[in-house]
């Protein structure tokens, strides 16, 4: 097994009456980049803090390198936590911030300073070694915080929303930087975020969490092409969720509309089921075409988004759909709000959803 693997077995976290994390099982491979993705309050930060050892575990076990660390203090785990607002000590300059843990370990002043300078070089901050946190920009503070987390050669780096304090431009840049450092050092990164864009760009493995549960664990491509639940599909965006009743020939929705399915989703007791359909996999045209639904949809809004156009529409039976049309197709035959348009899709693009989870709130 590769160094730096993390395993959660039946982990539960309760705060008095309320439960933040409900029975989580998760395996994170050593040397991989894992993102915990979910809305605020889904338990992702709590999970991270339990791995770091800053939060006690109510039930279950946490294993690092197959070693049970559930009750060990943070420093004995081989993890390093990077805090959301970096928590750089304001009274110490960059060099002493990075060298802090070496000072604790009793390393001589000269050695800890030379090792800290090495780390600052890794994050391209060596020229700022004498600067105090208040003199650094957000991105610079983050680099110093990363160097501070890296100096003890941890096997796992835990990052709590590391990019949320940065402006969008810097966020994209630091994202690439994080990935570069992770690949260069080959250590496990576990990164908590609420941005699916960030998770998709960085992660080898995305863990989507909701309400204390894990909804889905997969590669970014897997998450986006085959979301397993209605929550995942709505949280990552760009998907329509079509709910209906299962029949022998497919999914019946609205009054009479029958949607043919490639594979049969699991229905609940009432035979209710749902599928997801990517907005960019729906063809839309003012003229009817072969795979189109028999009746046209009324276009309700048209939003220009640059490379694509976001159209929202509704059929007369109430089924609403979002469609991402490429700008080339849109410009060839522009649709306006109020127009009638035909839509269609390949039935292989319909992705059956696991029942029993709620849709992301507010999405």
């Amino acid at each position, binding site marked *: 097994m590769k160094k730096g693997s993390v395993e959660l077995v039946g982990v539960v976290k309760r705060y008095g009456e309320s439960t933040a994390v409900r029975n989580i099982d998760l395996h994170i491979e050593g040397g991989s980049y894992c993102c915990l993705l979910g809305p605020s309050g889904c338990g992702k930060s709590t999970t991270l803090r339990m791995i*770091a*050892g*800053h939060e006690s575990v109510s039930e279950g076990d946490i294993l690092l390198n197959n070693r049970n660390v559930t009750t060990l*203090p*943070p*420093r004995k785990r081989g993890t*390093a*936590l990077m*805090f*959301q*607002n970096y*928590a750089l*000590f*304001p*009274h110490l*300059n960059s060099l002493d911030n990075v060298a*802090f*843990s070496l*000072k*604790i*370990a009793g390393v001589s002043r000269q050695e800890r300073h030379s090792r800290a300078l090495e780390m600052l070089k890794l994050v391209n901050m060596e*020229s*700022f070694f*004498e*600067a*105090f946190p208040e*003199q650094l920009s957000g991105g*610079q503070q983050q680099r110093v915080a990363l160097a*501070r987390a890296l100096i*003890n050669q941890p096997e796992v780096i835990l990052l709590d929303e590391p990019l949320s304090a940065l402006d969008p431009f810097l966020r994209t840049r630091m994202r690439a930087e994080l990935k570069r450092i992770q690949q260069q050092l080959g250590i496990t990164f576990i990164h908590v975020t609420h941005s699916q864009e960030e998770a998709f760009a960085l992660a080898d493995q995305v863990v989507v969490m909701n309400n204390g549960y894990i909804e889905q664990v997969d590669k970014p491509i897997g998450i986006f092409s085959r979301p397993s639940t209605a929550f995942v599909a709505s949280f990552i965006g760009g998907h329509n969720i079509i709910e209906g009743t299962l029949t022998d020939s497919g999914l019946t929705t609205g009054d009479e509309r029958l949607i043919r399915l490639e594979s049969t989703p699991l229905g609940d007791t009432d035979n209710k089921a749902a599928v997801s359909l990517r907005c960019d996999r729906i063809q839309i045209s003012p003229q009817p075409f072969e795979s189109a639904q028999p009746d046209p949809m009324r276009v309700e809004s048209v939003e220009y988004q640059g490379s694509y156009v976001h159209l929202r529409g509704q059929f007369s039976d109430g089924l609403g759909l979002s469609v991402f049309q490429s700008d080339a197709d849109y410009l060839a035959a522009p649709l306006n709000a109020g127009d009638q348009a035909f839509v269609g899709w390949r039935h292989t693009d319909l992705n059956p959803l696991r029942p029993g989870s709620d849709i992301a709130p507010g999405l």
Partner: protein
Amino acid sequence: MAALGKTKRKAGFIPLTIIFILFIVFLYGPTATIAILSFQGPEGGLTFPMNGVSLHWFRQLFEEQQVGDFGGSLTRSLLLGLSVMLCTAVFSLLAGLAYRRSFKGGDALFYLTLVSLILPSILISLGIGIMFDRIGLSPAWYSSAFGAHLTWTLPFGLLIMFAVFNRFNKSYEAAAIDMGATAWQTFRLVVFPLILPSLIGVCLFGFTLSYDEFARTLMTAGTFNTQPLEIYGMTTNVTTPVLFYALGTMTTLFSFTLISSALIAIWAVRKSRARKAPTGV
């Protein structure tokens, strides 16, 4: 923007400026007047015009008077102030740390501490004086007055430390613990340096509150007077108040020196940090 500000002032600017200037004159005028008058010639004189210019009264200040012992009382006041300051800082810090977590009886203890702020000073002074008398101890500036001063400075110190720890970002401590620091190392290397400026504030506060305290010392000082008591005694006995003018000038000068040295120290630290930080990028 600057040009705009010059051309268009808000309607209230001139009257408010006049009020502000009057306030400043009211605040510092008497001090300035006394400072000038303290340089009177040896013949003395309470008002303008001055009878010559000399340092006569400053010399007088440090010679033992028939009716008062200025040097001795000053020493006592300084010693008392410093010990009160030290005790206040240590106890406020420890209490502040204790109150970061709720503990049994914490609220009651807090209100009990605040009671001594609300009670009239003279009553506390009287009470402590009577208590010492009952026990059969003779009150002195270093025992009963010391305790009386602490009833005044401790609640203030505690309130300041509450405010400090309320604002204190706990992630600094979590970060230190994440890097392997023990509880004591976290305190010594992170918490203490971060709250040090506030602790110095508590010290200055404790010292000044004790140094000029009159009412709480009145019944507790015993045989030897602290400076405020001595001055009060002198006002009823000394023939010329020019001596007080000199005294006022000296104490004001002392305070200003203290404040300016603190400001200079802060400025020096800022400057040295700014010099070290690279300017580029």
